[in-house]
């Protein structure tokens, strides 16, 4: 590369307008410096809509297409080059608007080549015969344009004057100012400091930073032995006692690479004041200015350094491969990594509605409630008594200068560290109230705000212990866009899972009309497949097929668990109401939920409350909350008796069939016996009907085993078989012996409520032992057993291994396949069944359930958890053979 090569530096994400007359070499330039898909040419678009690249009548439609594609590309964050003459101000205005509407920077590259060069090139082209007057006009327009490009809003303007210059130019792409994706942390992210130097110093010490001082003893920097870095969320200045001290420290740390700082609205105003602009010196600015004057006196040049520092502050940063965004007042997802006036305004001032509240403060639109981005957004700006997660966003301004606390979040640990303010340095215009109350107040009447105000400034809660989670404020309703329509859920264990629109439509009805609050509905269990069909005489299912399946999946040891015949049940149990409020955002006084496979409550709220008390008592007595260091658990269990939930179905369907058989068959046998006695040849029919009568009795016996009367909770039993989640962890990596032990401890703590699950552990060759056990179980009326990989979660050569296969007993199956299914002729036909679809469904639902739990425990926002749970319910409405 020779020294004369012009280097053209453009932001990585920008809209590049090539400007130049026809024949100035724009297309050639574009081809040389950009990928073909990055370049949108007006000629090409004319061809698209009119089959003729030179059909000027199609220009309007062609540009509609061009802008449409440009919009889609920019929205997706892709650099886009527009290859059109762009010599008219009108055309360029549209480009600038297109760039601004996607919050990217507009860039102009002007090919201002001599008119004769352009004319010659055009003359050589067969397809384009412009009159000289056309070029003349373009040339004049270009001349006039050169002066106005800056004013039109182009942030970078490059002009190439000669063919040589154009040919030798090199285009380089530079990262955006806000792009710190390569910085992966770990970080300590600190909320609004507002000149509170002592608290900042204390907080940094708590976080493990070593202070650095100059000879005068002034704090000039701090560094961390593990190379952690601080992110200041803006509003370092104003109101507090030592703005210069805070700035000196922050400047030193950023200069040394130990910290990053984004601009706050107070910095933006201070820098204008320092430059001598006319700004109102309210909200603590006057104090800052006089403090800075004093500092300047002691340390000449300090003011200038401050001005330079503040002027260089970027309004937001994107860190850690895009997973973390820091902005003073927060930032909605569409603005992450973007640059425009409104992006900066949002980052500095928040999403203001233009209205003011009864305290004269701007009403802020609670953008975080709508936030659906994957990046964690950390911000300050609005003082709150206690940080609360809202959809993966967290405000860390705990009002230190107003007498609250100075708070940091350790990232990626998601732990809060805070120090209390030494005193109230500045009286707040509005009392500090919880964000949830504040947002209600902003929407509704003055009455609720007044009542919040009358409660006085909220007292900060006792500092959180190490195990306490950051409070979460879950929205009490989710957005219908989170669930409706065709959806694809990305799971870590089974890739992308597609939910068809029709299934979502069915699920939303059940979810809306019958299910418990989505904040409790953190998990739904997957369906379970039966074993492959047995060919043994008289049987449809047999343990042999389960063992064969796990052997071929590469599983070495299995557990056979007795299958309780009840109803699948998920129980979310909180240690107390406070945990329910802090972790699940439920504030109606309930402290858990017990629900069915489709998310419906088993019992009335009152009875559920009593059941939860029992569960809580047992978990506490068994020491499980303590052991897991968790204030809540999610349990997977079977609730018995079957009749507790299914009594209507048992009566309407099963008992009814039994009653009909009991009424009909004796009469049939009676008339056949009489016919036989009078010499008719009905023996075969009589034998067949006697067999049917026996089958009908067996059928009645089968369902009767699973019915017993309950009254309130009396008679209700719970057989837990898995602990699903606690605050810290999921447990699908704990083998099933561990889960069985846990269940036994619960049973020991409350033997009346809990039922243990008989089980046999064996390696995959232990089929005979398991078969004997299964035969015993089912002979005495058991439903059967479930064979599971002992290790619990297992991946095999073909991906996820089925978490369980049910082997149901012959008598139990009468309930499913009908009283007479055991007749040879029936069995032969029933063996033609397809477990493949059921297996596939079971695997997808299993993966979605795991995903829901992983997201729950990972502290992801409710909508992300709900997405998975909803998907399980939607998949359950898929048509598969219901007898499997």
């Amino acid at each position, binding site marked *: 590369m020779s020294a004369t090569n012009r280097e053209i530096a453009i932001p990585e994400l920008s809209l590049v307008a090539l400007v130049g007359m026809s024949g100035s070499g724009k297309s050639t330039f574009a081809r040389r410096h950009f990928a073909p898909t990055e370049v949108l040419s007006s000629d090409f678009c004319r061809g698209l809509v009119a089959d003729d690249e030179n059909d000027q009548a199609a220009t309007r439609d062609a540009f509609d297409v061009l802008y449409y594609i440009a919009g889609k590309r920019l929205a997706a964050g892709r650099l886009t080059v527009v290859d059109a003459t762009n010599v008219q101000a009108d055309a360029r205005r549209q480009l600038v608007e297109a760039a601004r509407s996607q919050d990217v920077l507009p860039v102009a590259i002007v090919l201002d080549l001599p008119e004769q060069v352009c004319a010659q090139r055009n003359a050589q082209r067969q397809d384009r015969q412009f009159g000289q007057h056309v070029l003349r006009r373009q040339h004049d327009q270009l001349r006039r344009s050169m002066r106005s490009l800056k004013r039109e809003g182009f942030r970078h303007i490059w002009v190439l004057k000669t063919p040589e210059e154009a040919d030798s130019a090199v285009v380089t792409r530079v990262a955006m100012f806000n792009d710190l994706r390569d910085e992966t942390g770990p970080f300590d992210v600190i909320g609004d400091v507002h000149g509170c130097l002592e608290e900042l110093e204390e907080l940094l010490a708590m976080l493990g930073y070593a202070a650095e001082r100059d000879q005068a003893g002034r704090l000039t920097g701090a560094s961390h032995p593990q190379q952690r870095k601080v992110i200041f969320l803006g509003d370092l200045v104003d109101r507090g006692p030592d703005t210069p001290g805070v700035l000196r420290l922050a400047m030193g740390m950023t200069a040394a690479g130990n910290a990053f700082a984004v601009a706050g609205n107070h910095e933006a105003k201070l820098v204008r004041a320092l430059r001598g602009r006319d700004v109102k010196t309210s909200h603590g600015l006057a104090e800052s200015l006089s403090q800075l004057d004093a500092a300047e006196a002691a340390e000449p040049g300090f003011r200038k350094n401050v001005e330079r520092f503040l002027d260089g502050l970027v309004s937001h940063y994107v860190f850690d491969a895009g997973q973390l965004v820091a902005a003073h007042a927060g930032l909605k997802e569409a603005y992450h990594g973007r640059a425009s006036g409104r992006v900066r305004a949002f980052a500095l001032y928040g999403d203001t509605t233009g209205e003011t509240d009864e305290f004269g403060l701007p009403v802020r639109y609670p953008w975080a409630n709508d936030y659906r981005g994957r990046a964690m957004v950390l911000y300050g700006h609005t003082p709150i008594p206690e940080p609360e997660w809202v959809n993966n966003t967290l405000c860390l301004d705990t009002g230190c200068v107003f007498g609250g606390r100075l708070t940091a979040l350790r990232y990626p640990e998601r732990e809060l560290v805070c120090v209390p303010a030494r005193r109230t340095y500045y009286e707040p215009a509005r009392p500090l109230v919880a964000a949830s109350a504040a947002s209600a107040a902003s929407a509704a009447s003055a009455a609720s705000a007044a009542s919040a105000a009358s409660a006085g400034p909220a007292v900060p809660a006792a500092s959180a212990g190490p195990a306490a989670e950051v409070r979460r404020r879950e929205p009490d309703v989710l957005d219908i866009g989170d669930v409706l329509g065709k959806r694809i859920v990305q799971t870590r264990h089974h890739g992308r899972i597609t939910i068809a629109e029709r299934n979502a439509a069915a699920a*939303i009805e059940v979810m809306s009309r019958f299910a418990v609050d989505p904040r409790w509905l953190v998990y739904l269990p997957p369906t379970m497949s039966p074993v492959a069909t047995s060919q043994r005489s008289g049987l449809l299912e047999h343990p042999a097929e389960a063992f064969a399946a796990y052997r071929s999946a590469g599983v070495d040891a299995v557990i056979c668990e007795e299958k309780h015949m009840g*109803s699948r049940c998920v129980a979310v149990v909180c240690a107390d109401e406070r945990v329910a409020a802090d972790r699940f955002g439920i504030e109606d006084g309930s402290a858990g939920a017990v629900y069915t496979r489709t998310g419906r409550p088993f019992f009335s709220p009152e009875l559920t409350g009593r059941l939860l008390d029992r569960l809580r008592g047992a978990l506490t007595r068994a020491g499980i909350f303590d052991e897991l260091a968790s204030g809540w658990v999610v349990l997977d269990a079977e609730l018995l008796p079957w009749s507790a939930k299914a009594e209507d179905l048992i009566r309407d369907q099963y*008992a009814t069939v039994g009653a009909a058989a009991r009424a009909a068959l004796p009469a049939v046998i009676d008339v056949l016996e009489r016919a036989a006695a009078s010499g008719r040849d009905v023996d075969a029919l009589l034998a067949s009907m006697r067999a049917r009568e026996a089958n009908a009795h067996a059928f009645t016996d089968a369902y009767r085993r699973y019915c017993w009367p309950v009254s309130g909770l009396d008679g209700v039993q719970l057989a837990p078989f898995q602990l699903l989640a606690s605050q810290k962890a999921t447990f699908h990596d704990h083998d099933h012996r561990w889960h069985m032990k846990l269940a036994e401890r619960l049973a020991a703590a409350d033997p009346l409520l809990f039922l243990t699950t008989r089980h046999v552990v064996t390696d995959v060759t232990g089929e005979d032992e398991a078969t004997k056990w299964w035969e015993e179980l089912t002979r005495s009326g058991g439903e059967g057993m479930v064979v599971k990989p002992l290790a619990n979660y297992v991946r095999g050569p073909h991906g996820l291994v089925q978490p369980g296969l049910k082997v149901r007993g012959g008598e139990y199956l009468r309930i499913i396949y009908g009283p007479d299914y055991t007749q040879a002729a029936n069995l032969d036909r029933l063996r033609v069944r397809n477990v493949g679809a059921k297996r596939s469904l079971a695997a997808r639902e299993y993966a979605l359930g795991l995903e829901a739990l992983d997201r729950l425990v990972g502290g992801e926002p409710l909508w992300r958890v709900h997405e998975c749970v909803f998907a399980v319910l939607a998949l359950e409405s898929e048509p598969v053979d219901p007898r499997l």
Partner: protein
Amino acid sequence: MLVTISTTMYPATDLGFLLHKHPEKLQSFPVTAGTAHVFYPEATVRRCTAALLLEVDPVALVRGTRGQAAESFTLGQYVNDRPYAASSMLAVALSRVFKTAMSSRCDARPQAAAAPLPLELHVPALPCRGGADLAGRLFTPLGWQVAASPIPLDPRFPDWGDSRYVDLRLTGPMRLADALNHLYVLLPVLDDAKHYWVSTDEIDKLVRAGQGWLAGHPERDLITRRYLAHQAQMQRTALARLAEVDDSAADALDNATDEPRVTQEPDRAQSLAELRASAVLEALRTTGARSVADLGCGDGKLLVPLLADTTFTRVIGTDVSSRALEMAARRLARMAERQQERAELFQSSLVYRDDRLTGLDAAVLMEVIEHIDPPRLAAMARTVFGFARPGTVLVTTPNAEHNVRYATLAAGTFRHRDHRFEWTRPQFREWAAGVAGKFGYTAAFLPVGSEDPEVGPPTQLAIFSRTDTTGSDR
């Protein structure tokens, strides 16, 4: 599965001639549902009994054409009473096997075929929906002496009560053809189950079999309604599958478009639904609303008058039930194109916020809130009053105090099986005041239907008006 026909005419064995089935033989006929057998447990000159036994093939019942079970069938179709009960399948078998006898043709014994005979019919397991006494109401007017004894559901669980089956004995002098036709029509009527396996030209069959007796029957309406009501609905809906997953009957979930138990005020010509609709329309017109959403529009009954009134320039109907929306779409499709152009119909939920519902003048929740579980009412309020924030919200709900005025409604029973609660007037007002205060609305109340001095109107209406101009709360 079984019906026996006995006679004591002399000689009783002539029954064989009349039925065209020889008393000495067991005869078997293939029918759609399995095999029909005819035989005679007794055949003497004093008394002769013919038995028709339908042996149902339970597996074949639900197998598709490819020999594999159709996946769209419900579990209830696999395990059901059809192999035992005297249902439409038995009626069909009867008409196949005794076709000639039903037309009262008998060349060998024409007089006996034309005359009333001493007959006794026995149906040991007759499904009788509506209680054992319905059998009496249907057969007695035809000249039968009826003995219907209920069968207990399960003797092990006495408190489950009786099953839907009765052991039915009919005695009386009756023409044999009439007796057979009575059974042919009334077995499926009493069963009142879905005719999964019956052909579709049912009206003709009813006319033919009912000749001479149906027209004058006091229960004629019930008979025709039930006979024709249950068109084959074999497809298991997605919702029914979800019910099954939860060990519930399909209609425990799939009931969004069910009719309420109470549809009419005792002394009013207008139905309650009409009264409510006109009260709601009146209130909407008073507010001057132009854009209106009917939230929980059901089958779209209210959308029709809204679209008929051009002061409403934008009419939105939403429901959470796809089935309801399909019905509403069919209703709208019958309206004029210009009216349809003002309508929007889409699935939405009252417990998920929905941007498509913001910026409206008014929203209607007509007989909707009582279908929401009380713990979820707060989410509904947040969605409607907090997010959608229309200028006016109209809410109607039953007045529980008024329920004592419905003679057919058992005490403590709600007006619709899906109602989660029904409120008294003070309860409704308390809730409404809370919502209004929380979200910046005022609430006014109006009666719907005539106001009973003691227990108030059948329906209560609350009109919420937004007091501020604050936009959506997010």
